[in-house]
């Protein structure tokens, strides 16, 4: 702790001291908590990544860049990072579009809006593992609701195995993800729309502009920075996706739905190669920053222009 108080702008030295003490005692637990949850893991991972380590025995020897090299050349890691980025960018965009449109509709509803927003809230609250189970029931080849409908209407002759099909498995996971997270976007966009000052829109309306045109030319540019923040938040969250892949496809068929978090999990807890998993994790963390950086920059740019 500091021995000397900073500029004595807050009364006596004693008062400044007291304030410093309060600041430290109030924030120190948070710093310590984050140090345990984020700081220590990062240091530990760096050490693991440069060593030969398995789950039972870590740090068996320094191996230089061997783990990084092997992760890129000998494993499915780079493909899984590509899958993760593709997944995050696509689901976030689809969910932002659906969520914004739904929020616009809900904001026009005068009565019963709160009741509707509760229904919309339920998917968001559902544990992701149960989301996986619910969607498995809907899409299952035997006894799935969708296959039942398609078979009964004669659109297909044989049930479709959505999660066993190389081309359909990823869209199926995206569908479940969209079900779970669009509600969050709806709620955020709803709040953003509530914050739009009405006078500008009303002025445009008095000029005879159609509501649709007002939305595209007046409202949307105003809320663009806020929408970009929502998109950024959703991309960051989507890059963490793990549960849905675990419950729905286990990365399969083949490696069709193998995303980075799942690949790392497999390397660490199924193949027990913790050193390799650490190298993968570090490279994935760097990728996450690189992917989110352009969105942050664009957001700052839009924010500044206002």
């Amino acid at each position, binding site marked *: 702790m500091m021995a000397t108080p900073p500029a004595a702008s807050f009364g006596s030295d004693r008062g400044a001291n007291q304030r410093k003490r309060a600041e430290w005692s109030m924030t120190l637990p948070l710093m310590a908590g984050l140090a345990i949850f*984020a700081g220590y893991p*990062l240091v530990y991972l760096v050490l693991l990544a440069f060593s030969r380590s398995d789950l039972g025995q870590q740090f068996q020897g320094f191996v230089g860049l061997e783990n990084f090299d092997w992760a890129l050349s000998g494993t499915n890691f780079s493909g899984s990072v590509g899958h993760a980025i593709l997944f995050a960018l696509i689901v976030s965009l689809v969910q932002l579009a659906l969520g914004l449109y*739904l929020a616009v509709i809900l904001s026009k509803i005068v009565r019963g809006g709160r009741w509707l927003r509760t229904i919309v809230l339920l998917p968001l609250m559902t544990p992701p593992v149960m989301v996986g189970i619910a969607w498995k029931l809907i899409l299952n080849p035997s006894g799935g609701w969708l296959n039942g409908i398609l078979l009964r209407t004669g659109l297909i002759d044989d049930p479709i195995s959505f999660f066993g099909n190389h081309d359909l498995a990823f869209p199926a996971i995206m569908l479940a993800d969209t079900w779970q997270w669009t509600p969050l976007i709806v709620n955020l966009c709803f709040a953003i729309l509530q914050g739009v000052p009405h006078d500008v829109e009303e002025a445009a309306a008095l000029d005879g502009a159609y509501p*649709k045109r007002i939305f595209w030319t007046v409202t949307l540019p105003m809320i663009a920075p806020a929408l970009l923040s929502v998109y950024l938040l959703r991309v960051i969250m989507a890059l963490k996706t793990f549960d849905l892949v675990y419950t729905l496809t286990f990365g399969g068929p083949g490696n069709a739905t193998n995303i980075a978090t799942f690949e790392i999990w497999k390397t660490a807890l199924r193949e027990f190669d913790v050193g390799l998993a650490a190298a993968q994790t570090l490279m994935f963390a760097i990728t996450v920053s690189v992917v989110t950086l352009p969105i942050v920059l664009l957001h700052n740019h839009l924010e500044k222009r206002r």
Partner: protein
Amino acid sequence: MTASVQDTRTDRLIRFGFLAAMLIFFALPIVYLFSTSFKTPDDVLQGRLLPEAATLKNYPNAFAHVPVLRMIWNSVAVALLSGVITLVIAVPATYATIKLGAFRRTVPNITLASYAAPPIIALIPLFYLLQTAQLMDSIPGLALVHGLMNLPVAFWLLKSFVSDIPAEIDEAAWIDGAGYWHTLFAVILPLIFPGILATALICIILSYNEFLFASALTFSEASRTITVGMSLFQGERLVNFGQMAAASFTGMVPIYLIAFLFQKHLVGGLTQGSIK
């Protein structure tokens, strides 16, 4: 609405259609899961929305097959304990950062950075940490991990509630000679109670729903959570869908109860915290 030009009828029809489609989309998986929990194995294979001959047997059978209630209890215990850990750490820190200006830039930056990092980063190191601390496979161990995990979320949710308090209020308390900790407890806490409640609810739900850490850090019946237990159903060769649906639905009840009881607080917390 006072708009001088009204939407056309087609516009309204499209909007209504989209709203209806989305509501069905949101409700369908939950309804189908609920309905499947009353189906016999033969009934399941029909793939119809409603069971033909509803049975109540799936519930007792599922409870006999896996300790569903025990796992829900474990999840609830972890969630509540982790919520307490998160709030005890986050509330004073948020107050000090926003109102006292302590580490005004550092704290928001490190919380944001820790939130952006995928949790898989922390998995392996925390695995060893819990092993060393003798907290592996225990409710306090997982609660501690979840409690720390939710710190960034709690900070950002609480931040907006604390910022909304006019500066005069706590400054008046300081001038009256109240200590900073005393001001926090006696003046600030009552004012931001709705925010604390919303934050607590969101952190509790996040912990209850969490799977990655729970699956790696709990494995015995005494501490395994419901999300881990439900994932084990997946590994079985012959899945009884009716029982799986019954167990899943039971596991979702505590969360849906919170959603219905505290709907107003939840929506307020979600939106206020993340927009500002």
